[in-house]
């Protein structure tokens, strides 16, 4: 099969473009509209996705190369954080604390923020199509996060109308909190998809926090925690000890289970390890990179994530990078990891704009915290250092599985620091 110079198959590219336009309901006329912005004076960097990765990438590229034209494309007007959203679910923080406007990226750093939906990307032409026209780029940083993978688990789609997975920021969390507040007892079910998925400790933290909330509110309830994995993939010892110490008899942990169906009429989940009836729940579906990335030829076959150079995040197409949850990387998928990866890519892009390849050390750093009850938390740190010249990779992994109140306080500061880094 003949490949274009970009490394993307043309037939697949065209098919992808057409199907995406049809699926998104965007007329082909839109793709024919003109350029949304006048041509830049210098290099233009387009960043797609205003989450942890995209915001950080846009800010840091602009900081490093102020003369570059940096465009951040995001469909929502406000940023809403998924990290700390479990705190919101159980009433530890207000929803407003998770929300940030994008305006400072423009007023302080000069990033142009475009609120629009991406209809298509033409990699050979280096052009992003939006609903209102197109934007050409020299460098493209894609950070679109995740989509729920209903193709591999169709029964989740309707189930999520009633019992949200709440792994995408926004109304899902608001509704799940309302369900929890209205819950008066009986059976709860939480499901965890098989790895990889966004923020590995989050389902386990959510289970612990909801159990703690139930205890605190004196509700008579039992949780069925249906996990497609054999154990928590991170902080295993900390979570298992906390479940044992705090929630013995309050929950049944069903591990290595495959969900076969969700019957909303009878409120039953059928698994290969038995059937569970429930009154309230959070059903977290499997996840994948957004289909847009498949449609433009960056995902192969039945794969769900974009293969990138794991230390530089460059795809097979030069000057096109994928960061955050959408890519396959060493770090667990998380907001903090996306923030760290964005800085790596910003450094590489800035160097190339200045006409040279970055030759220093590239560091990816991940720190994750997880609550185990309403007051205490555990945490982990993982770091990969990559020396471009020697090609050596050094890994550091530290887990603190002893739950502490002070770790929960660090957790808040961890999040506040990230938000400062992105928006100030």
């Amino acid at each position, binding site marked *: 099969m003949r490949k274009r110079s970009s490394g993307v198959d043309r037939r697949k590219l065209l098919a992808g473009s057409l199907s995406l336009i049809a699926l998104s309901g965007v007329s082909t006329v839109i793709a024919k509209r003109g350029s949304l912005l006048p041509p830049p004076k210098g290099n233009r960097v387009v960043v797609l996705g205003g989450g942890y990765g995209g915001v950080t990438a846009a800010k840091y590229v602009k900081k490093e190369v102020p003369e570059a034209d940096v465009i951040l494309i995001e469909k929502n007007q406000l940023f809403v954080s998924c990290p700390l959203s479990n705190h919101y679910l159980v009433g530890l923080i207000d929803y407003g604390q998770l929300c940030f406007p994008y305006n400072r990226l423009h007023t*302080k750093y000069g990033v142009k923020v475009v609120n629009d939906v991406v209809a298509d990307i033409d990699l050979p032409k280096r052009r992003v199509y939006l609903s209102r026209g197109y934007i050409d780029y020299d460098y493209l940083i894609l950070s679109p996060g995740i989509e729920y993978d209903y193709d591999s688990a169709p029964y989740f789609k309707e189930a999520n109308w009633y019992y949200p997975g709440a792994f995408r920021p926004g109304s899902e969390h608001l509704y799940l909190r309302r369900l929890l507040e209205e819950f008066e007892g009986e059976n709860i079910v939480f499901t965890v998809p098989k790895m990889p998925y966004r923020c590995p400790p989050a389902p386990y933290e959510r289970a612990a926090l909801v159990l703690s909330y139930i205890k605190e509110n004196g509700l008579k309830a039992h949780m069925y925690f249906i996990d497609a994995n054999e154990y928590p993939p991170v902080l295993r010892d900390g979570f298992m000890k906390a479940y044992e110490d705090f929630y013995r008899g309050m929950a049944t942990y069903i591990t290595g289970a495959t969900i076969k169906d969700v019957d909303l009429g009878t409120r039953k989940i059928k698994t290969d390890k038995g059937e569970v009836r429930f009154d309230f729940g959070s059903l977290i579906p499997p996840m994948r990179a957004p289909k847009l990335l498949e449609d433009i030829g960056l995902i192969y076959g039945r794969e769900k994530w974009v293969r990138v150079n794991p230390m530089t995040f460059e795809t097979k197409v030069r000057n096109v990078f994928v960061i955050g949850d959408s890519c396959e990387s060493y770090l667990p998928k998380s907001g903090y990891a996306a923030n*760290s990866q964005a*800085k790596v890519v910003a450094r590489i892009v800035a160097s190339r704009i200045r006409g040279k390849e970055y030759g*220093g050390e590239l*560091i990816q*750093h991940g*720190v994750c915290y997880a609550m185990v009850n309403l007051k205490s938390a555990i945490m982990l*740190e993982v*770091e990969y250092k990559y020396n471009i010249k020697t090609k050596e990779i050094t890994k550091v992994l*530290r887990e*603190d599985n002893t739950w502490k109140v*002070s*770790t929960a*306080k*660090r957790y808040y*500061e*961890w999040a506040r*620091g*990230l938000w*400062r*880094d992105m928006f*100030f």
Partner: protein
Amino acid sequence: MDRRDFLKTCTAVAAASLASPSFFSSLVEAQEGKFKVYKKALLVDKNGNPIKPEDIDPRKQYIFFYPHRATPCLLTNLGKEVPPAKVKLSDGTSYNWQGGVGPKKSIVAYSAICSHQFSHPTPEFSFINYYPENIPSKIVKRGGVIQCCAHLSVFDPAQGAKVIDGPAPFPLTAIVLSYEDGKLYALGTLGKELFEDFFDMFKPDLRKLYRSTRKAKKLVDRCEVIEVEEYAKEVIRC
């Protein structure tokens, strides 16, 4: 460094060089743009008396606010002579850090605003702290470091606060100290400053503490030194 700043620096350094001529001449020569002179500020104890080097306990950590009324700094006695060090930055530039001051050349000071994501001591919490030898860091398993527990950046105060672990992109800003006639003074900063962003990020908090950002930004000529444990309700170590 523009012409006005350069002249200001030269004037201040000329005065300061009376205390340690060799240090300051090499300082200004080697680090244009990295050394910034502020008001010369006397470090005093809680009673308003000049703090004596022997009162700075190597097993403790101290805080003072310099060069602005609201910008916290950590003061420590490393308990041994600390020689000057060359501090290299990731952009390839470098500067010469002065080393310790005082009779034993063991006293150092750094801005307590973490160069990663701006954690700093507040009246509620101190997540960034000095770990003396008797309280080793659980991250790097040793004392004699400054560590931030929010994202685990670790700095070496004996090496100009260079980053020895974690995500911080550059060292803590050094506070240039001088020791004259038994008294300790702060003279300026050395390295990458974060004050402008700090005032921007923490505007609401600073308004609560100082009534206005203008008051928080006021430059000081006298700094009260107290133990961090007295300043913050909770000192969080890791």
